[in-house]
């Protein structure tokens, strides 16, 4: 890979330890993927924040980088393992909270915005069409590439941090237009009537196209929340963080549908539900917000919970960013949801909080949420927002 004089000096350690280590990471990745050079990035999203996944060694690594590392571009943070303010309310233990706070302190020292959300594009880290960025968090990477039309590979925690300290990333993969063309035509004949149908659709497409780029036709309209849910699902069950929907996502007008074709009908969506859902009736955990709930979703939750009470046998979480909760406070949605017995889980979610062993069965609108909940030994039910709220109120799936 060709390096400029300044980049050579960074690699030699002239800007300190964090920059040197970062350059080593970027150069190694550049060499593996035959990148010709490094390119500047507009912003970074860093994953690998929950102490649950990092452990003490991860914390130590972050502390070493934090000694002299400062980010050079706007850098936002993925969800942590707990609500940073109200962790007691979510049943997090003291020792976990202490360690999680040390992780957050290290990120803060680096100059990273402690946003703790998987939806950075909703809270001020909104890239432009065609802009190069270096993001981790697969759902956000997919949203940025597909819905916004920005350009990023699927980074891991350390490589995203490295890009933040250098302000650059190796020029390969999805940064190159030649690698962004569609491979497979997916014609959707199935009717999509509720938010969870988009998770089911993501399951079907992800499973079938895997590492290929899908060109989707047959969809007439899509909302931000539906696309957000679809992005999370398609890359959880597949692995490519880029797709096109004709007439809806940017860049789709540049391409014709590829020859290789898959057709998805109502029965495929039904089968996805059958695979994602377990045979369970009693629900003791309901969590909405995978990816993190938007203000519109919070408004819908408040509307459905007006004058209702969550079942005493059920824990109800709205997982969202702190910024979104502040909007909800202003609008009065928070008061309605809390009066009904619901809780806000800011800065975290059901996938990264230490919930293993605490609950038996979860209901959620999200296919990705179900996938990670099974890793936490939970039985799963996926459905519309109305069905999930009904389960929270009754303590049962009907």
């Amino acid at each position, binding site marked *: 890979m060709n390096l400029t004089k300044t980049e050579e000096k960074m690699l030699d350690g002239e800007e300190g330890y964090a920059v040197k280590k970062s350059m*080593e990471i970027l150069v190694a990745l550049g060499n*593996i993927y035959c990148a010709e050079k490094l390119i500047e990035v507009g912003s970074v999203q860093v994953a690998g924040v929950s102490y649950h*996944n990092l*452990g*003490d060694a*991860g914390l130590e*690594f972050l502390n070493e980088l934090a000694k002299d590392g400062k980010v050079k571009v706007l850098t936002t943070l993925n969800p942590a393992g707990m609500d940073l303010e109200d962790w007691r309310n979510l049943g997090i233990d003291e020792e976990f909270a202490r360690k999680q706070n040390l992780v957050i302190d290290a990120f803060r020292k680096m100059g990273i915005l402690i946003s703790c959300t998987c939806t950075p594009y909703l809270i001020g880290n909104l890239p432009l069409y065609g802009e190069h960025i270096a993001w*981790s968090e697969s759902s956000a990477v997919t949203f940025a590439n597909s819905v916004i039309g920005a350009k990023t590979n699927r980074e891991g925690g*350390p490589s995203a941090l490295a890009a933040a300290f250098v302000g650059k990333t190796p020029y390969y993969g999805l940064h190159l237009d030649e690698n962004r063309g569609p491979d497979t035509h997916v014609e959707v004949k199935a009717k999509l009537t509720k938010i969870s149908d988009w998770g089911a659709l993501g399951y079907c497409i992800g499973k079938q196209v895997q590492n290929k780029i899908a060109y989707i036709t047959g969809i007439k309209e899509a909302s931000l929340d539906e696309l957000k849910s679809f992005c999370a699902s398609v890359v959880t069950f597949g692995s490519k963080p880029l797709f096109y929907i004709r007439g809806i996502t940017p860049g789709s007008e540049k391409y014709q549908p590829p020859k290789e074709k898959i057709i998805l009908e109502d029965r495929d969506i039904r089968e996805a539900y059958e695979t994602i859902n377990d045979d369970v009736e009693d629900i003791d955990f309901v969590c909405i917000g995978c990816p993190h709930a938007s203000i519109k979703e919070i408004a819908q939750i408040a509307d459905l919970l007006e004058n209702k009470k969550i079942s005493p046998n059920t824990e109800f979480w709205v997982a969202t960013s702190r910024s979104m909760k502040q909007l909800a406070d202003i609008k009065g949605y928070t008061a309605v949801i809390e009066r009904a017995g619901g809780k806000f889980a800011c800065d975290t979610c059901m996938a990264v909080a230490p919930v293993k062993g605490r609950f038996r069965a979860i209901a959620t609108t999200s296919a990705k949420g179900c996938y990670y909940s099974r890793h936490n030994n939970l039985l799963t039910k996926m459905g519309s927002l109305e069905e999930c709220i009904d389960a929270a109120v009754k303590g049962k799936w009907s």
Partner: protein
Amino acid sequence: MKGRIISRGIAEGEALTTTHPISFYGGVDPETSEVVEKGHELQGKRIKDKILVFPNGKGSTVGSYTLYRLKKGGVAPAGIVNRECETVVAVGAIISEIPCVDEIDVSKIKTGDIVRIENGVVTIK
């Protein structure tokens, strides 16, 4: 054998080889260095101080942090030789300062061989 340097350095030790890819996150115990992935060729073996020879890495990017945890705990492999290194192992080896080389015909190295890695060169003694 000459390969490509992923992470610089010199290492020497007994080879532990497998034809299976390795997932460090979930597949290797970060405290003991024992391979715990069910059905893996190396299941039950410890990778501490070995020259670990495998085709490529797989799995979650959190695996980079697992390698770092092994190093800090004093139970990391001495060196890594791959056929084709991917990002999880590359980033893990760099941040942990474990010498790592790829583009090597890993079938030439047998478990128990004494192997030396010196930057991009791998020698069987």
